[in-house]
């Protein structure tokens, strides 16, 4: 649990890039909630500047679905960039991890 602080943002970014390439993820608040409801989500990222109400809502769903939430150190623009997209991403749900070890490191 304490490991989170030691991990750098760079590490997380590269892991996220690997997930994008080899695995499957959905971007966006609506899709994230949908994937959480369906039980398909493995890990959820929330950008730092997400609206507090939305943030709480996603966290609550994650709590119900026993899915881990990662509070991304960076705002939605950075999270979008980390995903390789030209747009901002406030919340992102990883469905299939692919080759990345992202789950193991955040667990």
């Amino acid at each position: 649990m304490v490991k989170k602080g030691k991990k750098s943002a760079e590490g997380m970014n590269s892991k996220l890039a690997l997930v994008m390439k080899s695995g499957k993820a959905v971007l966006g608040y609506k899709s994230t909630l949908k994937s959480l409801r369906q039980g398909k989500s493995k890990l959820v990222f929330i950008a730092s500047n997400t609206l507090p109400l939305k943030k709480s809502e996603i966290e609550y769903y994650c709590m119900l679905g026993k899915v881990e939430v990662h509070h991304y150190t960076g705002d939605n623009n950075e999270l979008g960039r980390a995903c390789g997209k030209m747009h901002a991403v406030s919340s992102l749900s990883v469905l299939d991890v692919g080759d990345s070890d992202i789950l193991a490191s955040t667990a």
Partner: protein
Amino acid sequence: MVRFIKPGRVVIVLSGRNAGKKAVVVKCYDEGSKDRPFAHCLVAGVKKAPLFITPKMHEKKQERRTRVGAFVKYVNYQHILPTRYVVSGDIDFKGVVTDEKMGSVKQRKELRKELRNMMTKKYTSQATVKKGEKAGSLHTKFLFSKLRF
């Protein structure tokens, strides 16, 4: 990772006439159905929460105020907010609320009445809950309390 919209889950309805009302999931259609090709569930909800009563009140008045107004509805998953509360042991809901009964308007009306009686009974029987069941009663208490917003 865990599917949490399951029968028994207390849920808050977000849109429509019953927005802001609490309900219990009776049946889930995760894959949708022929009429409703989207993920939805059948909920039985509390349309009108019971009001407080005092011993000074007339018995008839008390009875009126402890009435629970019920509703049944098919709701899209998008329009409900699941909570951490679960009303277990409500298999009676499943037996009472069926798709056939939801078929016609007249049957729905009777269904609502039946539900109303069931819910009122459940609400009033809370007072006689034993010490061991304390945890469960918290959840039913949540269901029958009005969500203030």
